[in-house]
């Protein structure tokens, strides 16, 4: 049977073999040329091998996000500039009124440097070396100590407060990351100098009251110094305010 079938198959085979090979080789030729073209193009334009494309894509996405943030900032600044220009174009009297109101609001929010009589609280890590076996956490200041003093200063009637030159504003959080204290996302190290504008005598009395946080700190041998001044400077807030989720409630 094989002998009978073989001549027919022998004739048929080349007919099948050559065209199919030719088609596939055409595929290969096309694909190889296309691939080499593309790899060269990538290498030429990006100057990196195509295997590192994903890292590049990652950094590209990051840059795009940054750029979008910067663009919104530019748009905001332009809008503000337009407002200013409009205000300048309007009559001088109304501009002056608006300007005074604006300056008041800026001062209240913390965007202007302020000065006045006040109190400077200096806190530092405990000078006492930790005893053997004692938790060293007990000899260093924590963010909660700073936050406590700031809260007590507000409670005593302070009008503006800065910690190590960082203005305390509505969005300020005093927190810690590892061993450093963060205030307005700025890293801080001891000594912590808390400057408050207000009646120096009243602020001092409130802070020294029994059961206050300063009494606690003094009990743990932390050096605490209160110095009233006839004039202290509080720097402006240098960060930005940004509402991403919050909007003004029109009903109020």
């Amino acid at each position, binding site marked *: 049977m094989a002998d009978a079938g073989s001549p027919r198959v022998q004739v048929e085979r080349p007919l099948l*073999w050559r065209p199919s090979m030719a088609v596939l080789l055409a595929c290969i030729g096309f694909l190889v040329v*296309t691939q080499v073209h593309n790899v060269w193009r990538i290498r030429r334009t990006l100057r990196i091998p195509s295997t590192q494309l994903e890292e590049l894509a990652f950094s590209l996405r990051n840059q795009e996000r940054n750029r979008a943030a910067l663009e919104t900032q530019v748009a905001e600044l332009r809008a503000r500039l337009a407002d200013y220009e409009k205000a300048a174009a309007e009559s001088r009297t109304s501009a002056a009124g608006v300007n005074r109101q604006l300056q008041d609001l800026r001062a209240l929010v913390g965007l202007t440097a302020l000065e006045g009589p006040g109190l400077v609280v200096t806190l530092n890590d405990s000078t006492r070396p930790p005893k053997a076996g004692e938790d060293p956490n007990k000899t260093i200041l924590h963010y909660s100590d700073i936050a406590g003093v700031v809260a007590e200063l507000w409670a005593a009637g302070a009008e503006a407060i800065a910690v190590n030159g960082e203005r305390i504003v509505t969005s300020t959080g005093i927190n810690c990351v590892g061993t450093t204290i963060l205030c307005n996302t700025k890293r801080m190290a001891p000594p912590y100098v808390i400057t408050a504008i207000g009646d120096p005598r009243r602020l001092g009395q409130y802070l020294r009251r029994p059961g206050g946080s300063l009494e606690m700190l003094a009990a743990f041998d932390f050096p605490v110094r209160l110095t009233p001044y006839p004039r202290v400077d509080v720097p402006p807030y240098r960060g930005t305010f940004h509402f991403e989720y919050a909007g003004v409630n029109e009903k109020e």
Partner: protein
Amino acid sequence: MWLPVVGLILGVVLGFLFSVEIPLGYVKYTAIAILAAIDTILGGLRAQVEDRFDLSIFLSGFVVNAAFAALLAGIGDLLGLDIYLGAVIAFSIRIFDNVGFIRRDVITHYLKHGR
């Protein structure tokens, strides 16, 4: 014998004429397609030399292997794992195997012919 060569030249010319731009993420898919095609060509050549060429096996081998390699590469992309390297290695091993068999077949063929 000239028809396959004509096909190859035609493919190269087409590639130069229509310079298709492959998106950056799909470069490795075409690389796998090329490997699958080379693997199929060598497999077909070997079958032809050994006188057992079958068109349906030849073409289905190309299509299924390429599709499966693309599937592996896609799954690898989803998992963040370079699984397509497995397909690359498998194709490469098969290509070397087939080259070895073709070499052996051709040598034995010519030695027999010589004698």
